């Protein structure tokens, strides 16, 4: 091996040992990145399972049930269980302790119905009560069906064809595959993985640059024969290794995470196997390299670790906010998304989750961008090193 290669390896080894001995920080980052997969999946599956349960229960809560035998008859014919709503349903809905919307029937419901006076039936829910809101649509369709049945019967008695009432027929056709539909729920996973990776790199990147300045160990380090770029390359290698380790761990944490899925539907939709995990890693590794270099470039200009943490917020914020471009879905996926780090990776990982194929160009552009960012970052740090050691 060449002298330069040996120098890079020496620095890399030392920085890795140094980073791995920072147990408390490392454990916090590792625990949060490894536990994150199962935790996020558990939270999502809990929500989906409770939605499914309330749909399966086929229950309707009605206030003033005694005034509406016709409605009760209709609902029971649709195989729904009709229940009297608790007296304080408004309060309970507001506190989110009651998770079904309530149908409120007026006292003179039957009489008004017979007279054709269109009695007002309220569906009471709370916009902030997510689970109650989720069932509102179902109840609305149910009451609509009740209304249509009444109309049909009334017209049929008068000899009018039902088809007159429905000049057009509406049918829904969903083009999304099961996996695509699942990404509406699992779409935030790539985001979580990227954030975990970023925080994994953050500490190591700051410690090898601003931390080295703060300790006063940078000047003596530069009094050694290796070239500056070799020192920086070694440091960068160590930071990138830590960051990639976190990325790999959090990608694979979703594999056992699937076992805790409580919802069968979600388990069927969320197809995340070894292939997906490996594709995630392929997408993330170049980003880990680029982020490590970018963080080091930001931190080398800072005299203390604390100052560097403040400056690094810019990078953290960029990585946290860029993927939101696609979450907000501003104009859908655009070709330029592939040229923006973090946004591109988010897009590619979402595609993996959707079960779509990744093209060679789609992978090559983000990797190319990451290589350029990495090289620029390393060059900048190497150039700033001498100035940084003196001040």
């Amino acid at each position, binding site marked *: 091996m060449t002298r330069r290669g040996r120098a890079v390896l020496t620095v890399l080894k030392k920085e890795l040992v140094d980073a791995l001995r920072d147990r408390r920080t490392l454990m916090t980052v590792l625990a949060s990145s490894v536990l994150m997969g199962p935790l996020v999946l558990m939270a999502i599956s809990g929500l989906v399972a409770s939605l499914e349960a309330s749909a399966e229960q086929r229950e309707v809560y009605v206030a003033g049930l005694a005034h509406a035998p016709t409605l009760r008859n209709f609902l029971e014919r649709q195989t729904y269980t009709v229940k009297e709503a608790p007296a304080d349903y408004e309060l309970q809905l507001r506190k989110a302790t009651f998770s079904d919307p309530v149908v409120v029937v007026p006292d003179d419901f039957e009489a008004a119905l017979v007279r054709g006076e269109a009695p007002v039936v309220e569906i009471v829910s709370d916009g902030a009560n997510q689970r109650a809101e989720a069932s509102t649509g179902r109840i609305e369709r149910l009451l609509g069906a009740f209304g249509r049945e009444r109309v049909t019967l009334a017209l049929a008695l008068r000899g009018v064809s039902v088809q007159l009432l429905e000049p057009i027929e509406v049918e829904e056709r969903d083009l999304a595959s099961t996996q695509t539909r699942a990404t509406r729920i699992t779409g935030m996973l790539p985001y979580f993985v990227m954030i975990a990776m970023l925080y994994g790199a953050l500490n190591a990147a700051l410690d090898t640059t601003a931390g080295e300045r703060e300790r006063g160990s940078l000047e*003596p380090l530069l009094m050694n024969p290796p070239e500056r770029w070799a020192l920086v390359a070694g440091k960068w290698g160590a930071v990138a290794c830590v960051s990639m380790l976190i990325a790999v761990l959090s990608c694979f944490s979703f594999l056992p995470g699937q076992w805790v899925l409580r919802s069968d539907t979600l388990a069927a939709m969320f197809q995340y196997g070894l292939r997906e995990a490996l594709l995630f890693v392929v997408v993330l590794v170049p980003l880990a390299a680029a982020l490590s270099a970018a963080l080091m470039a930001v931190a080398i200009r800072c005299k203390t670790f604390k100052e560097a943490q403040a400056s690094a917020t810019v990078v953290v914020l960029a990585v946290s906010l860029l993927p939101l471009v696609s979450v907000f879905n501003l104009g859908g996926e655009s070709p330029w998304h592939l040229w923006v780090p973090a946004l591109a990776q988010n897009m590619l990982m979402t595609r993996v989750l959707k079960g779509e194929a990744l093209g060679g160009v789609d992978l090559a552009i983000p990797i190319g961008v990451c290589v350029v960012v990495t090289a620029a970052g390393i060059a900048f740090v190497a150039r700033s090193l001498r100035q940084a050691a003196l001040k």
Partner: protein
Amino acid sequence: MIEVRSVAKAFTASSAKAPGWAGALRRAASRTTVHAVRDVSFHAPAGAITGLLGPNGAGKTTTLRMLGALVKPDAGSLEVDGIDVARRPREILARLGMLSDARGLYPRLTARENIAYYGALQGMVPDAADARAHDLARMFDMVPLLDRRTEGFSQGERMKTALARALVHDPANIVLDEPTNGLDVLATRALRESLRWLRTPEGGSKCIVFSTHIMQEVERLCDSVVVVAHGRTVASGTVEELLAQTGEHDFEEAFVRLAFDPEQAS
């Protein structure tokens, strides 16, 4: 052997410290040139301790940084063992053991690892670096410290570790920038003993350059003294020669006359 010939170095600095954009303009407007080193020359032979004596801000640290290729001189030249620092800085660094003003250690590494890291950077194989770390630890009386993490080391323990780290590759030239800063009497004495030994043929006849602002140290240790003030070499010779030159009996008086003479300040 170290040869420094008429080096000079000026920095641009700004007196305004205001932050932000408005501050940047003000800083640019108030930019002034500070002549850290105007004209420093000295010759440090092998097998001798040369003291670089001067008040704070005289330009000692900047001169030594130029020797370590960390600062490029505006004028003049520096040579180590006949090699020009400006032309072949990497070779110089292999022949130089530099204990600079900043001597931070890696707190999560043990003293041995701190020393061995620099050995590896100097191109030593791990076994050789480790053996050398042990020898140096014996010399500086720090064997029990070797396998402790440097986190929580005392000033003296840190200094010993930093010195051992600087000497791991057994350099022929040793440059120490204010090594006794923050050391107690016993640690200072131990350091003095070590340096005296390094000067002897058994110790390797090292060329030792030692910068300080404490004249007692110079009196006790140095074979020759270079007095630096206001960025210039104002006098050089043995302690006796400097006393004779100023006509004083007390070295402190001689130093004050040499370093703070108003004529020299211009």
